[in-house]
């Protein structure tokens, strides 16, 4: 698998920007919304908000829903939830394994 088609890289690239994280958080907490409405509270233009939302869409974190002339964006944070879930589960497994290794190898240095 190359870096370019690595879904996790796309995911984290999308989340690397604080404005995009803020937009995703608003969509998660307050439900679907339009770029125009989201831009009201932000120090950036509507066009900039649209670009950020498109990045979230490409990462699978949001979905555009057209209703007449209006496009509302809905959060679809499952890819992030899966990534966080893996981190928590895999981390817990290593903590258990390394605790056993520590007992096997003798006491840790003070």
């Amino acid at each position, binding site marked *: 698998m190359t870096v370019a088609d690595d879904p996790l890289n796309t995911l984290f690239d999308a*989340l690397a920007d*604080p404005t995009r994280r803020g937009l995703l958080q608003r969509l998660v907490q307050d439900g679907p919304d339009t770029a125009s409405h989201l831009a009201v509270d932000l120090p950036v233009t509507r066009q900039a908000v649209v670009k950020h939302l498109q990045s979230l869409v490409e990462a699978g974190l949001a979905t555009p829903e057209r209703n007449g002339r209006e496009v509302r964006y809905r959060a679809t944070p499952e890819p992030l939830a899966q990534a966080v879930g893996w981190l928590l589960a895999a981390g817990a497994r290593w903590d258990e394994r390394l605790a056993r290794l520590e007992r096997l190898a*003798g006491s840790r240095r003070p």
Partner: protein
Amino acid sequence: MPGLTIRRTLDLDCSPTDLWRLVTDPHSLSGWLGREVEIDARSGGQGRVLDDDGIIRLLVVDEVVPGERLSFTWWPQADDAAASEVTFTVQEADEGSRLVVTETASAVVADGGSWDTRLISLWLAVCSQVTV
């Protein structure tokens, strides 16, 4: 950011030589990595880990630098899309040795779709406090 990485560091009293044996010898690995571990710790070597949770993981050794570093890719026998790469790095440390473990997933697979918007909000809030 390259994939999703877990990193753990463990300082031990034993020598780097003893630690290397603990992370490459199947009998030693069966005492901590999983319930039963088979591994041919050579580049291209294969192995099998029966984990505590009952999951069987198959593995292929990617790289070995004797005494220093072992990398392998492993995946649950039932789900080869959920592969990840594990690296053990053995270092000398004051009066002992240090093990650095990393596990990197390049893709994670749905675990049934259970997710919680509170967890997502919390995670995004944590991300906002640190540099990603």
